[in-house]
């Protein structure tokens, strides 16, 4: 019974809390900037206000709206599936299912701007593709190595694990993919230079923009929550403790990511993927060496 309650709370919080965390991030950044900043609930106020606005369908962008709805539903499903499968094993391949769902989500995410007949959207979309080709491809490679090293395909099996250097290196790479996927500086190149490439959301307004922002916040939550669970699984072997610790770690990570984003500048589409590729390849190589040296 307690497991059901905990899962239900985590699921609800995973949908509501990311937008509050976005408010926290804005407050932290404001403090670093030496200004007061908006109230913590400001991101929610924004979304509520957007839902109250007139519905304007972007011209010739019906596909984009449909894809956005698909993105939102899949994103919510992914967070629910992840939370539930941590406590109740749904299949023996829960982790693989989650990876597959995440990749589908990313594909939908980068498809949206490409279906909008607007130069800025297409530019933002093509930048996102360049980044995704490195980041999400390497996400799959890293998870492939994780599964290969451990033989684990569901959260229930995490209890068999103990921390090793090569696993920690691999998880570090996974946290970096999460940072990049969250679209923060220096990797917010799709949204960069507002008028040149407002990326994915340039044609969205009112409730549609509200839905997009909500989905984006949940996505930011997921990309921290998932690696946190894998990392904590090395140390915590009780599912309820694991999911609660995972939730708390995600909050801490959100704050750390906010600070990192505040002290860096924006990269460029020809610089960011190459830099990332170099980092990932070094980390993967180190983990391979660690694996064969059994450290």
């Amino acid at each position, binding site marked *: 019974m307690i497991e059901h309650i905990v899962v239900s709370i985590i699921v609800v919080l995973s949908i509501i809390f990311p937008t509050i965390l976005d408010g926290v991030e804005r407050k932290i*950044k404001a403090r*670093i*900037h*030496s*200004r007061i900043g908006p109230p913590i609930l400001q991101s929610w106020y924004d979304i509520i206000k957007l839902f109250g606005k007139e519905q304007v369908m972007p011209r010739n962008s019906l596909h984009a709206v449909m894809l956005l709805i698909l993105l939102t539903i899949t994103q919510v499903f992914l967070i629910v599936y992840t939370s539930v499968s941590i406590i109740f094993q749904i299949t023996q391949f829960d982790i693989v299912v989650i990876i597959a769902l995440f990749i589908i989500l990313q594909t939908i995410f980068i498809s949206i701007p490409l279906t909008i007949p607007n*130069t*800025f959207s297409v*530019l933002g979309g093509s*930048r996102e593709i360049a980044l995704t080709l490195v980041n999400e491809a390497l996400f799959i490679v890293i998870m492939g190595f994780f599964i290969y090293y451990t033989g684990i395909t569901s959260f229930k099996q995490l209890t068999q694990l103990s921390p090793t250097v090569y696993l920690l290196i691999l998880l570090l790479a996974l946290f970096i993919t999460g940072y990049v996927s969250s679209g923060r*500086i*220096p990797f*917010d*190149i799709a949204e*960069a*230079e*507002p*008028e*040149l*490439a407002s990326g994915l959301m340039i044609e969205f307004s009112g409730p549609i923009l509200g839905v997009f922002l909500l989905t984006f916040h949940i996505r930011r939550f997921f990309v921290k929550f998932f690696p946190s669970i894998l990392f904590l699984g090395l140390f915590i072997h009780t599912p309820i403790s694991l999911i609660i610790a995972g939730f708390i770690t995600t909050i801490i990570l959100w704050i750390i990511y906010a600070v990192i984003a*505040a*002290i*860096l*500048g*924006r*990269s*460029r*589409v*020809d*610089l960011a993927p190459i830099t990332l590729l170099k980092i990932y390849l070094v980390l993967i190589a180190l983990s391979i060496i660690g694996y064969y040296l059994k450290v």
Partner: protein
Amino acid sequence: MDISPILKNYKKIVESIGKSSFTHVGDTIYIIVEPNKLRELAEILYWKMNCYHRTCVGVDERPLNGHFALYHIFGDDTNGLHIVVKVYIDPEDPVVPSITDIVPAADWCELEAYDLLGIKFSGRKLYRLVLPPTWPHGVYPLRKETPYNYRPSVKIISGEEIGESHDKAVVPVGPYHPALHEPEYFELYVEGERVVDVKYRGFHVHRGIEKLGESRTTYQQVNFLAERICGICGFEHSVCYALAVEKAAKIDVPERAQYIRSIVLEIERIHSHLLWIGVAAHVLGYDTGFMHIWRIRELVMYIAEKLTGSRKTYGINLIGGVRKDINEEKKKEVIEKLEIVEKDLKKLIDTMVSVPELKKRLTGTGILPKSEARKLSVVGPTARGSGLDRDIRRDLPYAAYSEISFKVPVYSEGDNLARFLVRVEEVFESISIVKQLLDQLPRGDIMAESIEIPERKMGVAAVEAPRGEDVHFIITGRGKPYRWKVRAPTYNNIPALKVMLRDQALADAPLTIASIDPCFSCTDRIVVIKDGRRYKLIPNKGGVVLYG
């Protein structure tokens, strides 16, 4: 420096051209030349004598001598001279040879003379630069018969098609850019993420300020109008205007007033550069730097308020001196605050240049080679970032700049980093200049005893504003200027953007555009004010109507 051999050389050149006259007053040489000799003289001045082209000015002199006139103003910065070349133009057939193929920097000012005075230039393509498509043909705002409050009632007769007939993808920037907050419009033609061509359309808000200055205001009122040319470096324009009139009328300004002008000019420079560094950080996504630079800038605005009574250095300059003095208490407080600014800025700049993304994106982007910078006569940090060692404060000193020592930072790389570093170093230099000036501030009056401005005198003044040199040209009239021409630094720097943006990454375009610190309102010089209300011009079926 003894400039008599240099003057002799110029005189010799003018005599060799034939059918021309040569006079010299103070730091200005006046040459009158036949139209058919203009190109020859321009080539010698620009390329052999290594002069820069400051601007050209069309004047309706029909009420004075029955002609139109065109003045090309060159600058021999090395020898501290303005060279004004005048050409008389037949009023029945106002055509004069264009010099843009020899002096590319003269492109826009020729078009402006064509738009506003109807002077035609042979040997070049003419098109509207300043006037909107709705403006009727045959009406020239700067001709004396056109009243300052003339309002056209016309149908839209032409419209420029944008983004058409080009096989490259077009990325429009403007007409309002989120980083620059002023009306400008760039079309960037891209292949992938590379910019292959650039088209610029400006002058969306031409204010007709020159016409107002020649029509409605008195000499002293123009000071306040000149300040409104720019929201950042208004005091520079006001001082430049005052210097031009003082030069024309031979007015002696008290030493103390000269010092106060220099102090406020430097405060304005510190403010402007800090503002720009903040904007650059913002464009690069480094908002922490942006916010902290603007926090420091707040202190500079406090200083401005202490010295002038307003946070924007408005309202203290007049022909003949200044309206506000600096007492010991203000002196002490300014120095204290500047020390905080200096300390905080050093710390922040050290942090900023250690941010890897900032350094990567500033280095090697938006390159303006020295040869192109010279060809276009670019000014200010844009010129100094491309290896042109020019600064009017040192080359043609005005106010109290001859009394103090300062360095002029010059970088040869020509990229965004070079322009960034020039501005950063200039802030520290300006702090040092203000401290020196306050330390040496002489006693005495702050206003000239008598101010008499005779008619039909000419004055050219240049002031090194934060973005480069402002140039003001005056022909005195009765109680008000007969002709007042303003050339803002951005006017000379915008054409260089075409070179800077081409073959660069699209993502760097906003930074590169921002790197010249463009001031579009300076360049455009509009606000239609009637009965104290602000109006917009909107076209309707029947023509153009005023709409409040």
